[in-house]
């Protein structure tokens, strides 16, 4: 189904892509949101610890002057908890997706370039893993390893790696048949040099878009695991777990689930919009990269 129009991007110099991106309305929404999340994650250790202390005399109070977003079921400041939770989100988007990106790219390059039975074997394994609904596989991995942030990160990396592998392999296959690649090969350019110098830069655009989409999927997965109680463990704050606490107290406090959920929503929307904007900035008809969940 992939159409071969990717050549345009490789010839394009880098600058226009970036400036086009910065002029895009979607990116102008997404980038500040992501910057704010990162900033919150960085700033959270500096926050006054008193706002995070439990206080059974101010349980589930609504938004007010002392606590702009209200307090939670143990009397902690919701805004402070949201700021704390940003750290988890940043780690998921960078560490888990980063690991999957590196691992998946290596696997994809290897399978796509090497071909043959090894490729077939790897791709069947990838197919096997991709056949699991993402959350079902993540749930099983976390159930096997035990709950917690580290294991949630592993689970997310495990479910995301095959996705990268497949996309990269697809790109490699379509590139391999190109004349300039075969030509370089014939001229005697070593395989790895060829990969590094020609294929990887070519892949960068595709991977950028895909990584942004996977970051949004990964954040949803982590939030869902935490919501089910299998991700980040208390007292560490996680947006998903906060929404879960909020749904337990929906009658008593509307605000407890609404604000952390909004934080998740904005972050995911930012990644989705960034992916869209980046794709358009690269101006290429990429293979379908819609995120499955």
């Amino acid at each position, binding site marked *: 189904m992939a159409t071969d129009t990717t050549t345009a991007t490789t010839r394009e110099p880098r600058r226009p892509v970036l400036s086009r991106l910065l002029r895009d309305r979607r990116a102008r929404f997404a980038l500040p949101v992501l910057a704010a999340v990162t900033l919150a994650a960085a700033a959270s250790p500096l926050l006054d610890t008193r706002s995070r202390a439990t206080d059974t005399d101010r349980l589930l109070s609504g938004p007010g002057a002392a606590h702009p977003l209200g307090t939670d079921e143990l009397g902690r400041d919701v805004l402070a908890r949201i700021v704390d939770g940003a750290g988890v989100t940043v780690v998921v988007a960078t560490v888990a997706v980063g690991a999957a990106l590196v691992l998946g790219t290596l696997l994809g390059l290897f399978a796509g370039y090497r071909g043959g039975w090894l490729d077939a074997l790897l791709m069947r394994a990838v197919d*096997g893993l991709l056949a699991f609904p993402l959350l079902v596989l993540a749930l099983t991995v976390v*159930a096997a390893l035990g709950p917690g942030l580290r294991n949630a990160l592993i689970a997310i990396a495990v479910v995301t790696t095959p996705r990268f592998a497949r996309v990269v392999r697809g790109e490699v296959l379509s590139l391999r048949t190109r004349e300039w690649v075969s030509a370089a090969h014939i001229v005697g350019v070593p395989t790895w040099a060829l990969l590094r110098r020609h294929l990887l830069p070519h892949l960068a655009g595709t991977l950028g878009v895909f990584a942004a989409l996977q970051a949004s999927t990964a954040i949803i997965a982590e939030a869902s695991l935490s919501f*089910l109680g299998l991700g980040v463990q208390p007292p560490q704050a996680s947006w998903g777990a906060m929404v879960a606490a909020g749904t337990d107290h929906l009658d008593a406090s509307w605000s407890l689930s609404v604000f952390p959920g909004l934080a998740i929503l904005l972050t995911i929307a930012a990644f989705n919009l960034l992916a869209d904007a980046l794709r358009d900035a690269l101006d290429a008809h990429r293979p379908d990269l*819609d995120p499955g969940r």
Partner: protein
Amino acid sequence: MIGYLVRRIAQLIPVLFIVSVVLFLLLRLLPGDPTAEILGQEASAADRAALRADLGLDAPLWQQFLDWIGGVLTGDLGRSWLTDEPVASVIVDRLPATVELGLIALLLAVAIGIPAGVLAAVRRRTATDSALTGLGVLALSTPHFYLAALLIGVFAIWLRLVPPSGYVAFTEDPVGNLVRMVLPAVTVGSTVVAVVLRQTRGSLLAALGEDYIRTAEATGLRRRRIVTVYALRNAMVPVVTVTALQIGALMSATVVTETIFTLPGMGTLIVNGIFSRDLPVVQGAVLVVVTFVLLVNLVTDLVYAWLDPRITY
């Protein structure tokens, strides 16, 4: 075409094998002792040891795997450790809720997504287009559990229009069933709506740019007719494909959604099975789900190949 068909089906077998190995091994890693849940906290160590032997947990791993896979191949998914019911009949019990949820969600997605996508494409670069596309991104970016919490908060707790959760079988009380299915179906359908909308808009725009549409326009055919008859028909192929490929995502969505709305479906079966370490049930249920996803993908690919003569194999 026949060769392709055979090849695709043959490819399924190693994939299913890998799926079952992964599934089996992962679940054997689960910590904790299933006999504690089955016998209750006051059982003696001897009772628990005896039960382990009864359940075949003493056998080596490879033999447990062969036993299980042998059973699966002969249609026997084993028995629940917790209730001793045949896993197959438990799954049959749970399928209706999930299938109903999935179907209503898909129906909603198609009924809303396609017209909205067409509208966005026709009114391209207008406020309508921006609003619809924006809503699509919003729907894609809202985690299911969050949407569910908001819907319950507004419709069940604030407006008191529907019960917050629970399930009644359709055969028992059709109206009660549908009333309780509305919020879960909207929750599950939200992302599918967005995907259908984006895809419809995208492929319709592409189709409207094709030569034959321009020709049609040049011959003076009315625009509405061009859109609905010619362009849409061709744009539908990728829409159908992309919708069908959402089946895996749909299953992920049902897991969370069923848990929140406490629907007795496959999702809650898997989640509760993991929590209570009822491995035969989890293995059976996940295997059924994965097989179903693979089959839908296969059928989609075949239909696509059949519909689109440009693709050769």
